[in-house]
């Protein structure tokens, strides 16, 4: 088996753009090992027979004001009336949308991580036509890829994400590679939702290769035109940060930003 983030990339690159369905794995006895559910090309849920936590466990852990009794009551109501649990919790003011989003992403990534490690069949794609998940509560393959990778290094991933929030402007996207890890895939990302996950992995590899050579002449920041994107990359300790910008004068805008930032790196 390859490292889990690479296995995750191989699975996520199979998610059809705009497709609805599930990528499924089975155990040798035919029982389902788990699945990755997809709507309109976005990941909405993952389940694994080996994953021990429920969403409600994570919600209680993420939001201290939420009691198990409150959750159980809403859970029973949703089951009886066939209501979506997440939206109902938000509507009743029991959790905020960001907390729900974070809990769902954590559950999805951790369950996928378990499923990737499971001794089960290859993935098979089962198409369906149902649309049931709120788009705000589904995740791009890029979010899931970074989320799965971050499981092994949560503190460093949180630090990387906090730094991305400082430097990535609203019209930009950015991601971070942890060079102490074996794989050149993001451990954190911001606004990369629209970028194809394979393109993101290619950008990460190119940025890392560029910085490896650039460092031989004490270069701190590399700016390059990579396809539609102007791309800036720089190292902070062992973290490689990559900033992406497209549109009119993207390269010039990024150059000006990096020239200002460099003394603070």
């Amino acid at each position, binding site marked *: 088996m390859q490292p889990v983030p690479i296995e995750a990339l191989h699975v996520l690159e199979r998610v059809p753009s705009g497709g609805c369905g599930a990528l499924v794995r089975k155990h040798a006895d035919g029982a389902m090992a788990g699945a990755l559910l997809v709507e309109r090309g976005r990941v909405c849920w993952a389940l694994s027979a080996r994953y021990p936590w429920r969403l409600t466990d994570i919600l209680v852990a993420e939001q201290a004001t939420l009691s198990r009794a409150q959750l159980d009551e809403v859970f029973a109501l949703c089951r009886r009336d066939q209501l979506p649990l997440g939206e109902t919790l938000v509507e009743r003011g029991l959790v905020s949308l960001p907390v729900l989003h974070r809990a769902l992403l954590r559950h999805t990534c951790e369950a996928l991580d378990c499923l990737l490690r499971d001794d089960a069949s290859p993935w098979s794609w089962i198409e369906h036509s149902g649309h049931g998940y709120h788009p705000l509560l589904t995740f791009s393959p890029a979010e899931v890829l970074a989320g799965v990778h971050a499981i092994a290094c949560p503190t460093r991933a949180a630090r990387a994400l906090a730094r991305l929030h400082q430097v990535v402007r609203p019209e930009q996207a950015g991601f971070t590679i942890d060079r102490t890890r074996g794989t050149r895939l993001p451990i954190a990302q911001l606004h990369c939702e629209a970028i194809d996950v394979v393109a993101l992995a290619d950008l990460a590899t190119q940025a890392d290769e560029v910085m490896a050579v650039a460092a*031989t002449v004490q270069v701190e920041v*590399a700016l390059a*035109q990579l396809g539609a994107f102007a791309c800036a990359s720089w190292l902070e300790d062992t973290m490689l940060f990559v900033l992406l910008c497209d549109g009119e004068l993207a390269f*010039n805008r990024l150059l000006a930003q990096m020239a200002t930032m460099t003394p603070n790196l």
Partner: protein
Amino acid sequence: MTVLAEICAAIDCIAAAWVDTRIGVVVEQRTSREHALIGPALDAMTELMRSRERPPRMVLLSAQHVHIAHRQARDPHRVLVVLCDRSANLGFAVATVRSIFEAAEQAA
């Protein structure tokens, strides 16, 4: 006036060169002043621009220097490399090199 001469006249650069990334050699070079970084800088930029997948345009910033590279459209192995000191006129230097390169591309 050649592209390299025009660049050296327009901005305060250390060196400007055409490199052939396929064979990794400097085809033509103009040096405004001797500097120990010229050789390593040309080597690094040649390495970075070697592959066809490499970007058409690149700028590298260090604390003291700016490295600029542009790849020719009609011959992707031929790359213009400019090394200059980093100063407050960073944007001007980058824009000037780009406009001279693009004018030469259009004239070719």
